[in-house]
C-alpha cells in the first residue's frame, strides 16, 4: 500500500514537472498584466528545438539552450504584438499556438524526413535520472527509505530545476526590485509609469522570463521524459498549466501545489485505470480518464474561492487615446 503510494507520488512528480514549469512561466507574464494562452505553443516550439538540436549536437545542454531560445523568440513575438502594438493578447496567444503546431511539424519534416519526429536521442543526449548518494543502500529503510530513494532521488535534472524555480520565483517576486515592479505593473501600469519606470520594457522582461521557463518545460518533454520530439507532443499541457495558474491565484507556492494536484490526479487515474474499484466494481475506462478533470472542478468549486486576476491583466497600457 505504502509502496504503491510512493510510486504514485513518484509518477506525480514526473507528470507535474512540465505543468509546473509552464505554470510558473505563465505567472511571470500574467503577473505583469500580459495574459498568455500561448504557453502550449511555446512549450511545443521549445520541445521541438530542444529535440532537434540535442539530436544534431548530441548534447542535452545544447538542446536545452535551443529550446529556451525558441521559446523566448515566440514570447518576444507575443510581446511585440500585445505590448508594442497593443494587440489583443488572447488572439496573439492563439496565433502562437497555431504557428508552433505548424512550424514544428513543417521544419521537423524538412530537416529530418521522419514526419515531424526528431531522431531518437541516445542516452548521452538526454537529461537522465540522477541517483542521490546512498539511495540504493537506504532503499530498504522503512518509510524514509522509500521516500528518499524513490520520491526524492532518481529524477532528472530538470525536475529539480522545476521545483527549485518555485522558491526562486517567490524570491524574485517578493524580494527583488524587479519583482516589486512586476507585480505593480500588472495591477496599475499608470502607477509604474508615473514612478518613472518604463512599462514596456518591464513587461518585455516579464515575457522573456516566461519564454525561459516554457523553454525548460519543452526541453523536459522532448529531451528528459522522452527521447526526441513528436508532433503535438505537448498534448494540451499548456492549457492545464494555465488552469493551474488560475487555480493558484497567480501565486508561486500555490502554483506548485496546484500542479502537483493535477499531476497526482493524473497519476492516480493512470494507476486505477483498468482495475475494478472496491464496491463499484468494473468501471468504464473513460471514467478514470475524466476523473482528474472532474475532481479539479469539484475541488475548485469546493475549496478554492474567487480568483481575482491581476487588475491590469489582458489590457494593453494606453495613456493617450488618440
Amino acid at each position: 500500500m505504502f509502496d504503491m503510494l510512493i510510486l504514485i507520488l513518484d509518477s506525480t512528480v514526473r507528470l507535474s514537472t512540465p505543468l509546473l514549469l509552464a505554470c510558473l512561466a505563465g505567472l511571470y507574464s500574467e503577473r505583469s498584466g500580459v495574459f498568455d494562452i500561448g504557453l502550449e505553443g511555446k512549450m511545443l516550439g521549445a520541445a521541438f528545438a530542444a529535440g532537434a538540436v540535442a539530436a544534431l549536437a548530441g548534447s542535452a545542454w545544447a538542446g536545452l539552450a535551443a529550446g529556451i531560445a525558441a521559446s523566448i523568440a515566440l514570447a518576444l513575438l507575443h510581446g511585440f504584438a500585445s505590448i508594442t502594438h497593443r494587440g489583443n493578447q488572447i488572439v496573439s496567444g492563439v496565433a502562437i499556438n497555431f504557428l508552433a503546431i505548424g512550424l514544428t511539424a513543417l521544419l521537423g519534416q524538412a530537416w529530418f524526413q521522419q514526419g515531424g519526429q526528431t531522431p531518437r536521442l541516445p542516452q548521452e543526449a538526454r537529461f537522465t535520472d540522477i541517483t542521490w548518494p546512498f539511495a540504493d543502500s537506504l532503499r530498504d529503510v522503512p518509510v524514509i527509505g522509500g521516500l528518499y530513494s524513490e520520491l526524492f532521488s532518481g529524477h532528472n535534472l530538470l525536475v529539480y530545476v522545476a521545483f527549485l524555480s518555485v522558491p526562486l520565483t517567490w524570491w524574485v517576486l517578493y524580494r527583488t526590485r524587479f519583482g516589486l515592479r512586476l507585480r505593480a505593473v500588472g495591477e496599475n501600469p499608470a502607477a509604474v509609469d508615473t514612478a518613472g519606470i518604463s512599462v514596456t520594457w518591464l513587461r518585455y522582461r516579464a515575457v522573456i522570463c516566461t519564454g525561459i521557463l516554457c523553454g525548460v518545460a519543452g526541453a523536459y518533454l522532448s529531451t528528459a521524459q522522452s527521447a526526441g520530439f513528436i508532433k503535438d507532443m505537448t498534448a494540451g499541457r499548456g492549457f492545464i498549466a494555465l488552469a493551474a495558474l488560475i487555480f493558484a491565484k497567480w501565486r508561486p507556492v500555490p502554483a506548485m501545489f496546484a500542479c502537483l494536484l493535477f499531476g497526482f490526479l493524473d497519476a492516480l487515474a493512470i494507476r486505477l485505470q483498468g482495475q475494478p474499484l472496491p464496491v463499484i466494481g468494473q468501471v468504464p475506462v473513460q471514467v478514470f480518464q475524466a476523473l482528474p478533470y472532474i475532481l479539479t472542478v469539484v475541488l475548485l468549486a469546493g475549496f478554492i474561492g474567487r480568483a481575482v486576476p491581476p487588475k491590469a491583466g489582458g489590457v494593453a497600457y494606453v495613456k493617450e487615446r488618440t
Partner: protein
Amino acid sequence: MTPAIELKKIDKSFGAVHANKAIDLTVAKGSIHGIVGENGAGKSTLMSILYGFYQADEGEILVDGKRVDIPDSKTAIAHGIGMVHQHFMLVENFTVLENVVLGAEGGGLLGRGVAKARAELKRLADDYDLRVDPDALIEDLPVGLQQRVEILKALFRGADILILDEPTGVLTPAEADHLFRILRVLRDEGKTVLLITHKLREIMAVTDTVSIMRRGEMVATRKTAETSMTELAELMVGRRVLLRVDKAPREPGRTVMSVRDLTVRDSRGVDVVKNVSFDLREGEIVGIAGVSGNGQSQLIETLAGIRHAVAGRIEVNGTAVDPTRRDIDPSRIRALSVAHVPEDRHRMGLVTRFFEYENAILGYHRDPAYGKGAFLDIKAIRDAARGEIEKYDIRPPNCLLKTANFSGGNQQKIVLAREIERDPAVLLVGQPTRGVDIGAIEFIHRRLVELRDAGKAILLISVELDEIRSLADRVLVMFDGALVGERPPETDEGELGLMMAGVNREAAE
C-alpha cells in the same frame, strides 16, 4: 530670482481634442501657485506634461531657468518635480511602503533599500505630520490617507516642485486645512507648490498667485491678494455665477422614508453602520455630515438596496422594506420611487464605455417607456436622453458620444438628470459636486433646491461642509457608523467639525 518653472507656448492635442493651446505659465520659486478652471479646461493635461506623463506637441519647459525636455516621469523626478495625480497612481493591493519605494527602491534587492525607506518615511511623517501606517494596504485606507501616501511618494523622491491635482476633492475641511498647513510649511522651506482645484475658497486661502484656464487656454494670472472669488469665477466660466444658494424656508410635509435601528456589517465582519434611525420628510433636505469613511457610503448604499443590513427596518411611502432580506435589490427600491445618485460616478454611477444615451437609462432600462416586452426602443431612449441633455445643459450636447469623453462635471449632470427626471419621492445623493467645477456646482445646487421646493425628500451626503450647511434643512452628523447628533445648518463649522471628529459635547442625546 529665476522662476522655478516656466512653460512657453505649450500645446497639446489628444487626437481631435485640443487640450492645451499655446500655454504660457511662470511659477515663482517658493510660492504656492493655484490653477483653476472648469472640468476639461486642460489643467490635468498641462500638469501631466510638466511631469512627463504626456508629451507636449509644441512649446518648451524651463526648470530653474534651464531649458529641459521631459520625455518621461523619470526625468521629471530627476528635475525635482513631484506630482499628486487627480486619480491616484497607487497600487491598491500594495502596502503604503511598497507604493512609496516603487521606482526608488535603492538597489536590486528590496531588503536594505526598503529598511532605509521605512526610516525616511518615519522622518517625513514627523517633519510634516503626515502619519500613515507604512504596512497598511492601500485598499484598506480612506481616500484622505491614500492622498497622504501620494504626497509622501513625492517628498520621498525629494521633490522641491510639488504638483497637486485637485487634492481636496476627496478631503474633509479638517483634512484640507491640515493639507494646507503642510503646503505652507513646504513653501517656507523654499519648495514650490502648484495647486489645482475647483474651490475658490481654497485658492483664496492658501495660494500666492493664481492662474485661470478655460477651454485649453490660459486666460489670466492674478496675485491672489489682488483678486476676488467672483472675479475668478467669472474668468473661469466666462460669465457671472452666484456662489451661494438662496433657498426660502419651507415647512416639511409628511414622512416619506423612515429608518429604524439600521445596522450594516461589511465583508470583514465589522459593523460599519450602527443602529441608525432617522426620518426623511417631504420638502426637506437632510444632510449627513461626516469624515469620509464613517459609514455614510454604506448607509446610503443600504438605503438604495445595494447592500444588505444585518438588522433594522425601513419604511418608504408606507411600504415596509426589510433591508436584511437577500431578495431586496436596487430595482425593488427604485420601484418605490427612490432615486440614488451614487458617490462615485466612475465606479458605480456610469458605464463610461457606453454612449451617453445608454447611461441615461441605467437602472431604469426595464421601464416600459423604453421599450415593450424584451426589447429596447432606441429612438424613445435617445429622445429622452436628448431631452435631459437639453434641460441639464450637458456639454457637449451629443447623446451619441462615449460617456468617458464627458468631463467629470458633465458626467455628474448625466447621473443627476437620470435620477431626478424620474420624479422620485425620495432622492439619495452622495457627493453631488465632487470634482465638479463652479459652473456645474451652481447648477446642481439649484436643481436640488428646486426639487426640495417641489416637495421631494432629499438625503444628502457630502464631505463638503459648506455644501451641507448651505443646502440642508437639518444636519445629521455621522461618526464611526453612528449618528452622533442633529444640528441646524446654521451651526458653526467648528462645532460640526468637532462632532465629525467624534468629540460630542452633548453626549447625552
